[in-house]
């Protein structure tokens, strides 16, 4: 599986294909260890 095809969720619990994040413009993705 490619990173772009990984499915994550938004804050409302809706599925989002990760590749959609950078589809229109370059994106910085910061992966945090956890919330808090």
């Amino acid at each position, binding site marked *: 599986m490619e990173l772009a095809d990984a499915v994550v969720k*938004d804050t409302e619990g809706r599925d989002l294909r990760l*590749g959609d994040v950078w589809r229109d413009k370059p994106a910085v993705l910061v992966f945090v260890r956890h919330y808090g």
Partner: protein
Amino acid sequence: MRPHAEEFERSGGKLAVVGNGWPAAAKSWAEHVGFPPGVQVLTDPSRKAYDLAGFKRSVVLTLFNPASLARFVRANLHGFRQGRVAGDPWQQGGALVVAPSGKVTYRYVGFGPGDQPSPGKLLEALRKAQAVGSAG
């Protein structure tokens, strides 16, 4: 990261913050931090994206890491306090910059708590990704 959040959009890109707790925890945290509307807060409870990005998961890196202990002390001296953990406590973080073509132009693998690239480094990487995009 929050004080610099608008700079990514002003630079022609966008910022997404990905965690690994449940969506409700992500929502509560995003509201607490107060990210501007352009920032996408996402969550990856399965940690599949973390794995595909090559980010580490380690008890040792979390608990027995002198560099992280130093960052923890420094952060506390500056008034930052960690709240209750929501997500996988052993998962390490990292950062990516990805061009619209899907090319990962920058990758930073965190090796313990507090190990993240500076906002300046990420902005520089974002500008390089824009150059990749305009060249393609």
